[in-house]
């Protein structure tokens, strides 16, 4: 479904990605794990068209989208929940959600979608008229997730969706990710919470300083000793 080939990305003179390549198949959950600054967010930003690579290609369903503007990529069915939520603080919760559906014109469908989002995140419904900027951190994360679902993407890029969420919410979010996936959305998941991510993902890639150093089915990656010490850390010997 999505294929990334030899991607090289620079910020000024700093190289963030070194010729990385990977693939996502229809219906999968793929996770990308790696330490801080490994280039995970950069990868997602490049796929979404926010960052232009110096070389390499991003191919989505057979179309080369490397040079397609970001707003068109959304229309093609790729949505992203960016790192740090990036909700529109000056809009209300409802307006944020409607912006998520900006590319869609069928009012009826948008209404239905809205109901579904409220079912997943009842807290949002309570605060529908509140300015999004005054939501608590967790509420904002829910809003960001809900907002991205409003465009009915076929590929959803999630950048650290569990960041700053309470344990119960983390579970819930992962539940939701699974559900979304079950309903047919392909997911590329970037997570620090590697343990959880590897639990729900089908396949995983490990990114280290801008290079892919390991890939394979999630289970295998989880059992890789190097991953256990480097990313699962203490967790590995506590459990």
């Amino acid at each position: 479904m999505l294929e990334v080939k030899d991607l090289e990305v620079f910020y000024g003179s700093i190289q963030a990605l070194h010729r990385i390549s990977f693939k996502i198949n229809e219906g999968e959950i793929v996770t990308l794990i790696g330490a801080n600054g490994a280039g995970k967010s950069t990868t997602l930003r490049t796929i979404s068209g926010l960052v232009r690579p110096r070389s390499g290609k991003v191919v989505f369903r057979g179309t080369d989208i490397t040079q397609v503007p970001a707003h068109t990529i959304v229309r093609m069915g790729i949505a992203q929940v960016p790192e740090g939520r990036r909700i529109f603080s000056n809009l209300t919760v409802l307006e944020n959600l409607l912006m998520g559906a900006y590319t869609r014109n069928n009012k009826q469908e948008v209404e239905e979608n809205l109901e579904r989002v409220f079912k997943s995140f009842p807290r949002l419904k309570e605060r529908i008229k509140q300015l999004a900027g005054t939501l608590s951190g967790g509420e904002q994360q829910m809003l960001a997730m809900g907002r991205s679902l409003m465009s009915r993407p076929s590929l959803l890029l999630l950048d650290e969706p569990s960041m700053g969420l309470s344990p119960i919410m983390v579970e819930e979010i992962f539940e939701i990710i699974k559900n979304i996936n079950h309903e047919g959305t392909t997911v590329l998941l970037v997570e620090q919470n590697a343990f959880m991510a590897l639990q729900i993902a089908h396949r995983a890639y490990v990114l280290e300083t801008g290079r892919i150093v390991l890939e394979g089915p999630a289970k295998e990656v989880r059992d890789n000793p190097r991953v256990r010490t480097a990313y699962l850390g203490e967790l590995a010997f506590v459990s």
Partner: protein
Amino acid sequence: MPLLEVRDLCKDFGGLRAVSNFQLKMEQGEIVGLIGPNGAGKTTVFNLITGLIPPTSGSIIFQGENLVGLPPYRIAAKGIARTFQNIRLFKDMSVLDNVRAILHVHNGYGFWDAALHSPRFAKKEEEILARARELLEVVNLETRSRDPARSLPYGDQRRLEIARALALRPKLLLLDEPAAGMNPREVASLTELIRFIKDKFQLTVLLIEHQMGLVMNLCERIVVMDFGEIIAEGTPHEVSNNPVVLEAYLGKGAVVNRC
């Protein structure tokens, strides 16, 4: 006398009561965890203690002195430092200067010393510099001292925030989700760091965190909030087996069991 005593603290935002009858006593040298669901009012408690927003009612007594009504910088000078949930570094300043900017608070030289670079100034500045380097070493950022703060990766930015807070020589350190965005291994090293600085600088720490690994490992006592109120309080063990907490916050899942 407790180091910090918060009594009957309340905060309303419009119709919303974000903090309600919050009580907290902290003794010198404690590490206390403050947990609770998203939107429970934890960050608001920090904002109230540091004077960023005025409480609706209640008192905050630090070393026997009521802080309510003091401007933030005065509260800070009394020995309360914090980090922010959404990192707020001085982004275009160098890593070193992020720390040095705060260090001066304790190294007063006059305007004319600064204007003329008097010998006294030079001496103090060397002290500041040495101290800043020392703090950066503590958080393992000494090699990046000349980079702008904005160029650091996320986790490093969090550690820089801690170094900056330490520059204030605080007695009480408030950490708002220091482990957010870190992977378990990084969390582990952060745990070590917090433990280390607590001993080295004789700190009392109040910590908000959702990563239970960190909280359960570090804290002697945990306060749980929901809807602005305290719903439970006790040792990690007590809290993690409290049904109310499980229901509202931890969930029945594997997370707790692992800790």
